[in-house]
């Protein structure tokens, strides 16, 4: 599905990028405002690094499969 129109991989990249940014943002906010009832293994700050991984993959896919780059 790369021949014409927007690739499905672009939509997937967009989804991962937006979700990743939101999750990382929420994680960073929690670092500075720790919750009263933290989740188990809160000290690992999983939402910060997991969100960053998703955002990085999403950004890569958005760039690689951006509509303007397809011809």
């Amino acid at each position, binding site marked *: *599905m790369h*021949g014409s129109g927007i690739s499905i991989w672009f939509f997937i990249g*967009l*989804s991962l990028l*937006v979700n990743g940014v*939101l999750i990382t943002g929420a994680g960073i*906010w*929690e670092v500075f405002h720790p919750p009263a009832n933290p989740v188990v293994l809160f000290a690992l700050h999983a*939402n910060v690094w997991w969100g960053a991984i998703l955002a990085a993959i999403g950004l890569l896919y958005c760039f690689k499969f951006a509509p303007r780059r397809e011809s």
Partner: protein
Amino acid sequence: MMAAMVLFETTRLVHLSSVDVVIVAFYFVLVLAIGFYLKNRANTAEDFFMAGREMTAWIAGLSFLSANLGSLELMGWAAAAYQYGILATHWYWIGAIPAMLFLGLVMMPFYYISKTHSVPGYLKLRFGESSRTLSSVCFAFMTVLMSGINMYSMALVMKVVLGWDIHFSIWVSSLTVALYVALGGLRSAIFNEVLQFILIWAGALLIPILGLIEAGGWTNLKLQIAHNASSEYTHLWSTLGTSTGNPMGIHWTGIVFGLGFVISFGYWTTDFLVVQRVLTAKDLRAAKMAPIIGAAFKMMVPFIVILPGLLALAVLPVKLMGETQAVATGGHSYNEVLPLMLARYCGPGLLGLGITALIAGFMSGMAGNVSAFTTVWTYDIYRALIKKDGSDEHYVNMGRWCTIVGVLVSVGTAYLVMSFASIMDYVQALFSFFIAPLFGTVVLGMLWKRATSAGGFLGLLAGTLSSIGMWAGVKVDPSAIRYVAMSSSATDMAANMYRALWSWIVCVLVTVAVSYVTTPKTNAELRGLVYGVTTMPHEEPVAFYHRPVFWAVVVSVVFVILNILLW
């Protein structure tokens, strides 16, 4: 049922923050945007029902798997892992991998070369109109009913997990699916299934990673499970020597022949819900590769489904129980294991992604049901029996309306189940009656040129009726399970395995017997449909690592190694 509803009013497992709600809302916006974007690419019947037959192996393969990876599947098998231990993995490995590889290497060429639009369509070409009518009517009827049952179950889950109103969940999710499938047809369903597949992994993968960190690795996890439950819970095969030596009450013959052969091959090679995705592949090599790619990912799914169930046995401070007991005592049921693990590790943002994964799983399963129903209804019932000379545009319009009607019938079924819960058991049993005999009919049709039209139809009918007969017999006299499942201590799950096996054998025996006393088709009539009289298209020369058979061997080797490691 009312007691459960009252309980769900007062309890919820997780509370979503505003960022979680934004993530869930963004998902709905994106799937609808994909539907609207693809509207202009679904103008012909080939586009609407077959996605233009232009999908790459990766997209067809991921969609093939995603259509099966519903959220009830995720939550149900995580619950089964908590209840029965690692034995639940058999449904992902021996219960899927060999059949998917067989579909890719052996059966796909016949589906693809015949250019059929559906599995019932293949039966028409091979055995005639009567076999197609029987299979298509059963499939269409059961598909929308199953879709409704899944819809209700998902709405109930959303009520338990998030406290969402059950009507809100049913209508928002079903109308979203109806809109994007009606607009963009199968292409839209497939695009969204691939997106949903990625989101399921993104949302669920963190649970086993963090769970293993908390448990102290796999070895420590096994020790804790042996302490909290039993060491039997972490062995795949060594406890299956007797049906009383494992938590599932099943003998290895049931797993190998019932699940690994009949049920698995029946589902993965003849259930049009999944096969339809592969039929959209752009060429024969992509069509053969798609199930193999699906098999490779299917092999990894236990990591996000079974492992969380096992981890819960080790790390959760509460003991989970059956649904009835949970309702009576106010405890947590097995089915809540995945949301409980989600709530345990996932803070704001991650929780929203995890919930999105569950919703995505539900919607991909429902879109799969609806798009398969639409194709079978339009091609195999409406065009075959009601209006044979309609224009291409007419059938596309029928497909769009059929999508809406299919969803509304599913919603109606969901409300029916809400009032009469026992319907759920009956419909699920009805669906299982048909799959195993259908595999017998299709595989004989593809591999044995002597099979006749009368043999195919009567075999399918006899297999289905024998399955219904065994099920009814056990309902009337529960002790009859010792004949069906060869053990009086067999669970329903074990009984399903054996019932499938016997009904497949009945189907094959009747097909063979009737075929020998009736006249077969000529070789010319069978060309492109049957092994031995079909010339396979020459595949273009490609490097060995681009060939389906190479990757099938790789998947097989990994499959064997994993089974030995967890023996």
